[in-house]
């Protein structure tokens, strides 16, 4: 039998960083080494808990002070600079043209600002719509699909899409039915890349499936 893999190898295995040959080696060993299998399980568990512990910023809306950074610089503030100091015969035309400049810069700023606001609002709406469709798809898949049969969903408005595949069903110690699932999603308004997650959801007495753990397996 081959030597026991090092901790670093096991961790790389969990992270999907080993070459196919190395994976075969670890898995050959895993087949008849329950202790090793338990160790890998608890490494996976540790990652999942870690992942879930920092999820909070993904749920709520992004604070205004952060989205505001992406608004254009306030051009209007510089628009009407010191025109009162001018005197003499040209004062009126200069003042008039400066005023015009100020108004148009201010107008341009207001329009730019409005466009950014609108874009953010649209993104927010897309995100909410995606979440709603996604939640409905997850509930339906967990409630009605047999393990191994993926359900797909798509939001034609945003182009976001994904699949949910229940992979196994079990009863937790407290009697609740739980299902492990694999979810892939490309959420246009939320992330730059598609992600694959593995999670466990349990069915609460009110009939709602609630996710207990979720682990990001890959982004591509």
């Amino acid at each position, binding site marked *: 039998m081959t030597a026991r893999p090092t901790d670093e190898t096991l*961790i*790389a295995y969990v992270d999907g960083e080993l070459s196919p040959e190395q994976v075969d080696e670890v898995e050959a060993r895993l087949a008849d080494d329950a202790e090793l299998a338990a160790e890998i399980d*608890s490494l996976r568990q*540790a990652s999942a808990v870690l992942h879930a*512990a*920092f999820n909070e910023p993904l749920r709520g809306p*992004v604070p205004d002070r952060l989205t505001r950074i*992406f608004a254009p610089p306030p051009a209007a503030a510089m628009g009407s600079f010191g025109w009162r100091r001018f005197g003499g015969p040209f004062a009126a035309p200069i003042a008039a043209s400066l005023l015009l400049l100020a108004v148009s810069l201010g107008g341009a700023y207001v329009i730019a600002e409005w466009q950014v606001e609108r874009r953010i609002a649209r993104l927010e709406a897309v995100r909410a719509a995606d979440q709603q469709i996604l939640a409905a798809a997850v509930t339906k898949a967990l409630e009605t699909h047999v393990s191994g049969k993926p359900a797909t969903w798509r939001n034609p408005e945003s182009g976001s899409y994904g699949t949910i595949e229940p992979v196994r069903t*079990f009863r937790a*110690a407290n009697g609740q039915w739980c299902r492990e699932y694999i979810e892939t999603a490309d959420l246009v308004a939320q992330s730059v890349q598609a992600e694959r997650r593995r999670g466990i959801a349990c069915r609460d007495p009110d009939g709602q499936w609630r996710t207990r753990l979720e682990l990001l397996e890959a982004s591509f």
Partner: protein
Amino acid sequence: MLALLPRLRRFAYGLTGSIDDGDDLVQTTCERAIRHIDTWQPGTRLDSWMYRIARNTHLNAVRASRVRRNHLQSVDSDDMGRVDGARAMEARLTFAAVRDFVVRLPEEQRAVVLLVCIEGKSYKDVSEIMDLPVGTVTSRLARARLALKALIDGPVDTDARGEP
């Protein structure tokens, strides 16, 4: 960039240990990124570039402040598993305990763990973001992961594990 904000906030939350401090970091990071957008090479990953800025900004802030806050003081990894394990045993394992653990990790291990376990980055991406050889990424990751495993394995909560 706007689309990256949620994930950047999560990363900054992990680095600083608080959502508010994390958002301060994200704000600085975005402002920098916008100012230096010409140094980003199109074709390379924007998210990696932003993580890199966030991580460097954070490191600079920690170094500049000199007065390291108590909870940022690094703890010996071996010690950490035991002490935290015992405490978590009483309070049961909560996400707060895991966050506490991450915040106590030495600076150089924390970013590696966050990028690999939470942001789902490959070792190679992380080595590029942090300017480290892949071997160093692997060993830092191993040290932190084993300590975390010890923390979680310590207080086994049979209800929450849901083993069939």
